[in-house]
């Protein structure tokens, strides 16, 4: 370009003005106006889209956009006024139909007009910030039709009336409704809300208020819930069919509030049909309905939960404090298990297994199980009963299920160490009397306890099993070494390690000579292989099988306790013995001896002895004879097994005392452990930590903890901090 000479171009303006024909705009407009009329009169087919578009385009191009726009407004408005009148005169049901039809017409017309005026829409309107054609059309419709005085309220009341009709069971034209509602929605969400939704919600609230009042007076809880559910589903369906989807949440809120929230309390506490009745009668369906409905309202579920909890606690409390049921421990525990099963099922089936409800169940059980201080004992007795005889013929899986359920109850106990003590006692009796039906079940339970409470809890119990096994081996060794004894009475000894088994006082008892020598032989054999040990015979725990021949030649094998054996063997040498003589010879403690004689002389079917006088009680002057007339259907007769029984009062006190004593060192150990690791700690935290550490065994009493701390201070394990008296220091 650089070579070329620069020549300035000059564009000269037109020397003459181009005057657009002033009538041009008017003429063009008239064409368009006419077209609009035709469109509204359903005569659009004769129009040329291209021509109209060009005309509109030219008008805008030649700066006649204003005229075009304002013309449009005027024309359209005029038409709409006409339309409005025709709608107003429509009668009854035709009103909505006419409205609908006219709306469709207008909508179509609007499309066409917008297409024609597209150029204006795209250039003139953005520049002038005026409302686009389509929107303009909607606004005008809104202003001239929907908000027209004669139409607005009539429209609303018609719509609401239709809804009401449908609610009262009539069928309505849903398609028409849908179209009208869609029209309102198209006109803008504020139109929909102001002209329909808000009043709709108000009217609905009123409707449901009235209806719920009516229902609550005449229905019982279950029926009411059913009706409420139906209504709720209805409304949801209504929205799906012909309302804006956003209305669903709002209308359901209304129903929930009016039908559920407002009557919640009354429903729950309704006499004879409320929540408590449903729980008692296992009405799973109704409970499920209640759960699903109440879930929707604030505090609904917590109300159900609270009522259930307080009811459960009340029934539980009655269960455990009932004097009658306390008489039979097995029954007691069974009822607890049944109650738990019941609620488990309810929560599972009706409350969708909700965790919060499970927690409420657990906390309630924990509350009332511990109201009865004998619960640990009873649970142990229940297990004892099952392991002795209750599990015959039950499959292995069922055994596991029962034991798992028992473990659930065990978890609720606060005083687990009391349970341990009783369990040990009962287990000892079972093992020693050979009364466990199922070794596997026993082991299984020990494993469960170990998983729950740790190794320490079960180490002694396991020790008991070990002792039994070891004793078997010892006996084999004994007889292997002493083949000459094979002909005499068979001795079976169980050697019990003192620490593992419940402590027993050693008692006096003179064994018959044959047994005494045999026992001595065993003692020397045992001590020969185990030096440094001490053996003491527990004659109060043994059993014996003896063959007896009675007066008429009846032969029987009697299974008796060691004490009973000692007494019976005396009669080999004497026909008659007085109580005093028996006492002297055997040296068995008085109360045990009396019980022993009672079981042999006063119990029908087991009366191998005869007593004079024939009273039920043993007096010190009574005389005893072998009962020659003794008969029994069976060859083997069992007399007086040592069954684990509910403790008597003094025994109970003693056990409790022992438990308390055992707790002291445990508390001290916990305190020392905590102080050793923390070195310095204030009083309240010590109490809190100790309680937490011992929680799995028992609930530690703060006063007791304080006593132990003071004892430790005295023995110089701890000291009080000199500056802050609330703080303790560990003394290494």
């Amino acid at each position, binding site marked *: 370009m650089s070579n070329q000479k620069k020549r300035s171009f000059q564009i000269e303006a037109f020397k003459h003005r181009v005057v657009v024909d002033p009538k041009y705009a008017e003429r063009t407009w008239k064409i368009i106006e006419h077209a609009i009329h035709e469109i509204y009169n359903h005569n659009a087919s004769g129009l040329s889209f291209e021509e109209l578009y060009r005309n509109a385009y030219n008008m805008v191009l030649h700066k006649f956009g204003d005229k075009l726009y304002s013309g449009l407004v005027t024309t359209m408005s005029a038409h709409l006024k006409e339309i409005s009148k025709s709608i107003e005169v429509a009668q009854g049901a035709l009103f909505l139909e006419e409205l609908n039809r006219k709306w469709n017409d207008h909508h179509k017309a609007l499309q066409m007009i917008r297409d024609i005026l597209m150029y204006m829409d795209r250039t003139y309107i953005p520049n002038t910030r005026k409302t686009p054609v389509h929107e303009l059309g909607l606004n005008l419709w809104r202003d001239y039709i929907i908000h027209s005085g004669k139409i607005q309220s009539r429209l609303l009341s018609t719509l609401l009336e239709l809804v009401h009709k449908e609610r009262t069971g009539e069928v309505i034209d849903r398609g028409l409704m849908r179209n009208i509602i869609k029209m309102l929605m198209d006109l803008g969400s504020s139109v929909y809300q102001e002209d329909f939704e808000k009043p709709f919600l108000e009217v609905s609230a009123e409707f449901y208020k009235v209806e719920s009042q009516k229902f609550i007076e005449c229905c019982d809880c279950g029926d009411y819930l059913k009706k409420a559910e139906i209504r709720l589903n209805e409304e949801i369906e209504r929205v799906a069919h012909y309302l804006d989807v956003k209305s669903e949440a709002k209308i359901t809120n209304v129903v929930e509030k009016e039908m559920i929230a407002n009557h919640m309390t009354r429903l729950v506490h309704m006499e004879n049909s409320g929540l408590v009745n449903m729980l008692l009668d296992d009405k799973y369906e109704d409970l499920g309905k209640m759960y699903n409905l109440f879930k929707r309202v604030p505090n609904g579920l917590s109300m159900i939960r609270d009522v259930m909890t307080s009811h459960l606690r009340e029934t539980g409390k009655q269960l455990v404090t009932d004097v009658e049921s306390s008489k039979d421990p097995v029954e007691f525990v069974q009822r607890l298990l049944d109650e738990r099963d019941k609620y488990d099922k309810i929560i599972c089936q009706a409350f969708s297994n909700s965790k919060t409800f499970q927690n409420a169940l657990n906390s309630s059980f924990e509350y009332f199980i511990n109201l009865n201080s004998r619960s640990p004992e009873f649970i142990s007795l229940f297990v004892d009963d099952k392991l002795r005889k209750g599990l015959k013929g039950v499959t292995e899986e069922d055994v596991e299920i029962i034991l798992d359920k028992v473990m659930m109850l065990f978890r609720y106990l606060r005083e687990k160490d009391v349970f341990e003590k009783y369990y040990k006692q009962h287990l000892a009796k079972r093992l020693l009397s050979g009364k466990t039906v199922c070794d596997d079940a026993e082991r299984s339970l020990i494993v469960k306890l170990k998983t729950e409470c740790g190794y320490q809890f079960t180490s002694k119990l396991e020790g008991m099993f070990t002792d039994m096994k070891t004793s078997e081996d010892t006996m084999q060794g004994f007889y292997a070494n002493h083949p000459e004894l094979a002909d005499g009475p068979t001795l079976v000894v169980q050697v019990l390690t003192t620490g593992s088994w419940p402590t027993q006082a050693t008692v006096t008892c003179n064994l018959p000579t044959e047994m005494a020598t045999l026992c001595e032989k065993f003692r020397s054999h045992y001590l020969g292989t185990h030096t440094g040990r001490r053996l003491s015979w527990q004659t109060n725990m043994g059993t014996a099988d003896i063959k007896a021949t009675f007066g008429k030649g009846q032969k029987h094998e009697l299974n008796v306790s060691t004490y009973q054996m000692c007494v019976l063997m005396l009669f080999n040498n004497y026909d008659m013995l007085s109580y005093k003589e028996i006492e002297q010879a055997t040296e068995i403690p008085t109360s045990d001896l009396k019980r022993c004689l009672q079981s042999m002389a006063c119990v029908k079917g087991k009366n191998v002895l005869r007593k004079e006088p024939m009273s039920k009680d043993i007096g010190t002057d009574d005389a005893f004879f072998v009962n020659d007339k003794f008969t029994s259907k069976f060859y083997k007769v069992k007399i007086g097994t040592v069954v684990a029984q509910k403790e008597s009062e003094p025994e109970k006190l003693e056990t409790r005392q022992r438990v308390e004593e055992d707790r002291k060192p445990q508390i001290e150990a916990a305190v020392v452990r905590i102080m050793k690791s923390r070195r310095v700690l*204030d*009083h*309240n935290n010590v*109490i809190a930590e100790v309680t937490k550490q011992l929680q799995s065994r028992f609930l530690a009493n*703060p*006063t007791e903890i*304080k*006593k132990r701390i*003071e004892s430790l*201070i*005295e023995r110089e394990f701890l000291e*009080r901090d000199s500056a802050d*008296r*609330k*703080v*303790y220091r560990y003394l290494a």
Partner: protein
Amino acid sequence: MPPRASKRKTAPPNSSSVTSSDGRSVFSKTKTKGLGKIDRLFNSYANSSSGEIDPDGIVALCSDLGVDHTDVRILMLAWKLKAAKQGFFTQDEWRTGMKALRVDSLSKLKKVLPELEIEVGKPLNYEDFYAYAFRYCLTEEKQKSLDIESICELLNLVLGAQFRPQVDSLIEYLKVQSDYKVINLDQWKNFLRFVQEISFPDLENYDSSLAWPLILDNFVEWMREKHS
């Protein structure tokens, strides 16, 4: 603690042993002379065979001072002397104590008693004195607690003047309760804290969930029951 008889030096005669050519002998003479007066005072009450002032000697001392031998001021004196065994003063203890008091005669000793009371009353000293009072009463080796009777007397003696109502109630309680037959040092120390810190007799600011010994928790409960 065993009496320190074995470690005791024999009482040196008055001034004759220590002489030196320099002027120091004058001082030492004065010192030993001062010591002499203290020793003489000591000897006037000491048991000649044991070489210590024994209970009889203390009784005599008290009457000369015009003070009852159960008076708390004698306890204060013992504290000042750091006497190890109740009812006895060794020569060492005597010497140390008298020197600390700057006293070498009976009249001076009498005069210094009120000062001693004030000194004991100072907070730091008082706590020490209070604990000392307990330990002083322990007679057996390895003894760690005192029986209730002795405790009551001691409370009266040590705290009675200043905290009469508390002491009276506490003594009453100690006599009727049966949880504790003896009181140990820790509990004793807390008695002092109690009378110093807790408002009486309303006991408003007592919080049993704090680290007060159990015996005081029980005492407070007993008081509250009595007054309800």
